[in-house]
């Protein structure tokens, strides 16, 4: 008869980049049960924002996440702009979308590095993070910030691309695309990576639907959802987005989907730069917002991001609800962990691309 042992992972643990608590019960080498506890980086942002003005909140919401900061302000700004009835100039929308796509490339490469490190494949960690620098450099050049760009303002963006920058950015995007293609080849053919990720953390399309999972995790199980194509917010209505899909439903499929998405994002970045319309990048927005409600959605690197905003007519929001995509995949961790070997726990946890700061808010 084997004994059951409960192992705490977190809140402070070398495996985790951010604090959360997993209690994992093992029987020999197999995981038989797990329990999750969140809130160790809860900053009370949904309550705090009620005491700040709409403009101050721009900077608060940018700090919900330290990876996908720009998409948070994108969802927030387009919500407030809808309440104000503001029409953002096309050039502003294109530049907003450009940062969204660069951010997706940087987020997916960061994730690939983290996966590499967690499976003991340091080479891919080094390469992915080296190549990610190109995307970070471009974003820094455009906005002045590597991860918190403050690119969005209510009514448009505060960044612009000059003629002198144009060709330099395009040539670096081409270089980066070749590098990501090479990484994709490694994911497809390198045996070490396949052995560690194939068949691990399987989710069926039915499970994805029952748990309402979004983003690359859903697409890796063959569920064809992508708000960039389905919602056509920002400048996506003017672009043709090819949605990356896989059907295996395991961590390997999630790796493939994210690498293909990064390549597609680089293609979209070039398309945005080449088609960048002339004109202003922003319009002035009033400080007070008329009473009303809005539901604003955007496709973050990890999937559907939702902002519900209610205004009572003052210069501060009456309620902002943020639902970040990682929360949807965390619900599935219990099912994914059941029956896996303890050595694969880190692979399962990496597979869903945890962003705890996002989840806790």
């Amino acid at each position, binding site marked *: 008869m084997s004994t059951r042992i409960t192992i705490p992972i977190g809140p402070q643990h070398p495996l985790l980049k951010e604090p959360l608590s997993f209690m994992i019960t093992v029987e020999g080498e197999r995981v038989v049960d797990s329990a999750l506890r969140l*809130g160790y980086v809860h900053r009370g942002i949904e309550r705090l924002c009620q005491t700040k003005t709409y403009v101050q909140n721009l900077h608060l919401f940018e700090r919900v996440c330290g990876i996908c900061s720009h998409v948070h302000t994108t969802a927030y700004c387009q919500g407030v702009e809808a309440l104000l009835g503001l029409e953002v100039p096309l050039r502003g929308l294109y530049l907003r979308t450009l940062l969204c796509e660069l951010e997706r490339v940087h987020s997916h490469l960061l994730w690939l590095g983290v996966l590499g490190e967690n499976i003991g494949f340091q080479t891919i960690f080094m390469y992915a993070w080296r190549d990610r620098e190109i995307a970070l450099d471009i974003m820094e050049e455009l906005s002045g910030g590597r991860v918190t760009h403050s690119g969005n303002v209510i009514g448009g963006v505060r960044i612009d691309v000059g003629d002198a920058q144009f060709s330099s950015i395009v040539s670096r995007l081409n270089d980066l695309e070749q590098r990501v293609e090479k990484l994709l080849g490694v994911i497809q053919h390198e045996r070490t990576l396949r052995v560690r990720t194939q068949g691990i953390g399987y989710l069926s399309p039915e499970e994805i639907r029952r748990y309402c999972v979004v983003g690359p995790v859903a697409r890796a199980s063959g569920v064809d959802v992508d708000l960039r194509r389905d919602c056509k917010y920002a400048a996506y209505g003017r672009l043709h987005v090819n949605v990356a899909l896989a059907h295996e439903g395991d961590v390997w499929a999630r790796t493939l989907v994210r690498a293909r998405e990064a390549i597609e994002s680089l293609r979209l970045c070039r398309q945005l730069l080449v088609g960048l319309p002339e004109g202003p990048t922003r319009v002035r927005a009033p400080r007070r917002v008329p009473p009303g409600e809005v539901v604003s*959605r955007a496709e973050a690197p990890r999937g559907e991001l939702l902002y519900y905003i209610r205004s009572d007519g003052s210069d501060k929001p009456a309620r902002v609800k943020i639902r970040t995509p990682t929360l949807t995949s965390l619900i599935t961790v219990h099912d994914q962990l059941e029956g896996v070997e303890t050595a694969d726990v880190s692979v399962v946890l990496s597979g869903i691309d945890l962003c705890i700061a996002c989840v806790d808010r």
Partner: protein
Amino acid sequence: MNIPRILELLQEVLPAARLEVQTVPIDEHFISLPPDNLHAAVRALLERSDVYHLSTITGQDLDGQIELLYHFWQGGGLTLRTGLPRDRARIETITDLIPGASFYEREIAEMLGVTFLGHPDPQPLFLPEDWEGDPPLRREFALPEEREEGE
């Protein structure tokens, strides 16, 4: 999303309620329901329409009631709105229909003091175990700096 068809379906399931669609930006349709009908409405959506994706549940403390918004999405947004009395805020769970609602209900339970009847795991998710005081998103909850100002 075929909103007239969904309204017709919900009206058929809930003949006693008078349902209306309110359209808000961005492509979102709100339908208000009495709290007792919510579970039946969600069941009808899942079983008799193509809607299955619950984006999240928003809870907010309004004048006189706790309002819950169930945001669905299927090529367009659909939100079911319902209100609960502040002193007896309780509603049937929908986790039996949509297991993915579990975390959203737990968050609202601890942040707004709503009881979800029949929830399989009604523990706090974000707040510390030893949390004392009002649920933080209730109006009576004051931030530390607001407390100092009041004293």
